[in-house]
């Protein structure tokens, strides 16, 4: 049976892992390669590197970070943050990324999804959606959550799928970094609307939150950052907990 995936995300700035709350107040959380090595030992299913500044200088640092992390783990590795062109995606793939995650650029030019899906296959193209509750629905924000894209998250997820996206990485901006639990309603709304896997993100704080997002939220995978970085919740402990709850997990 296909297992639910537990994904560790590293928000990277200038080669270091940082983590904020609701996209603000960044603090340092360590060296990406050292963290990746620990996650691998603990049984993480997948790793995501998000370059959260994506300035020209940090882009060069990013390629080094990707290479360093890819050297540590033989697991699927996704890279996102500031990928705005086919060349940016190629640089990430050449450095060792298996998948690229598009956000702002996908909304600006959805044809980039199709271009990359043709070149690398849909399985290599993730569309990241930063969503926020609004008027009873879910709005989409871009530019690291600073700009309202005036789109509906469910509608955009459907369009991304039709353009060739292989997965959706769905972040609740309301819950990001709060440890209040995933937004299961948001996750289920998107997961039920598309036929590609949905990775839930934003709000993981305890073991129960993961169980909730896999059952009530219909998520295919769940992503977290800070709770894994600071080792509040070990990946192995989380997986044993989910397994005991009858959720299919790779132990």
């Amino acid at each position, binding site marked *: 049976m296909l*297992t639910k995936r537990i994904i560790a995300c590293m928000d990277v700035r200038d080669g270091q892992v940082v983590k904020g709350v609701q996209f603000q107040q960044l603090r340092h959380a360590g060296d990406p390669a050292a963290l990746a090595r620990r996650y691998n030992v603990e049984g993480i*299913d997948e790793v995501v590197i998000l370059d959260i500044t994506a300035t020209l200088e940090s882009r060069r640092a990013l390629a080094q970070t990707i290479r360093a992390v890819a050297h540590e783990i*033989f*697991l699927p590795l996704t890279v996102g943050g500031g990928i705005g062109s086919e060349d940016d995606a190629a640089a990430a793939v050449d450095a060792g990324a*298996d998948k690229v995650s598009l956000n702002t650029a996908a909304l600006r030019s959805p044809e980039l999804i199709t271009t990359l899906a043709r070149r690398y296959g849909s*399985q290599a193209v993730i569309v990241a959606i930063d969503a926020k509750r609004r008027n009873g629905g879910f709005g989409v924000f871009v530019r690291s959550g600073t700009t309202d894209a005036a789109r509906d998250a469910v509608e955009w997820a459907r369009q991304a799928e039709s353009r060739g996206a*292989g997965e959706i990485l769905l972040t609740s901006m309301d819950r990001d970094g709060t440890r209040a639990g995933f937004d299961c309603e948001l996750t289920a709304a998107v997961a039920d609307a598309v036929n590609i896997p949905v990775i839930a993100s934003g709000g993981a704080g305890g073991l129960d939150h993961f169980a909730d997002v896999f059952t009530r939220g219909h998520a*295919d995978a769940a992503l977290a950052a800070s709770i894994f970085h600071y080792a509040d919740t070990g990946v192995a402990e989380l997986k044993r907990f989910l397994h005991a709850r009858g959720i299919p997990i790779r132990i």
Partner: protein
Amino acid sequence: MIALIDYGAGNLTSVKKALTSLGAEFVVPDSPAQCAEAKALIVPGVGHFAATSALDPQWRDAIAGAVRAGTPLLGICVGMQWLYEGSEEAPEVPGLGLVEGRCRLLRGNAAERLKIPHVGWNALEVTRGTSRLLAGLSSGAHVYFTHSYAAPVTPDCVAATTHAEPFAAAVERDRVFGVQFHPEKSGETGLRILRNFLDLSSC
């Protein structure tokens, strides 16, 4: 020396990285003739079955010829599908036909949320205990898949995986081996499988 066949679909980075970590030497041949010199051949693959059409008749003859001469061949993902007669994904593109059967689209099961593509870690059900490729692994070992098409479970299948329906996760016929999953992204289990292939190839 292993020949890693590059037909331009996606990247070989992770396969190269895994081979390097296992201490294996490899080349990416520029011309089909180099296949004859290799101790083993690996055809990696991601993406669309049509991409395998870049392996023109010269490449096909060279690879099939090397296998006839006793060289082990491992196909990964689309590289495994290419070992069969063909695929529904690109009916006009012939496979190498070293293994009987045709690949077809997995159906999934929307009611049970079994989505296509089949992405993630799933269990191997070993169907032939004498597999050299899977030596040392037991049923239930998890490996990483990402695909929409798959080969049927036939007598050459050494491990099946179920996603709404069973399909061939690993195939083995004489010196021809294939895995639908990505051993280079399947942690220690995947590295063990690659190690087995290197060992049986004396690489």
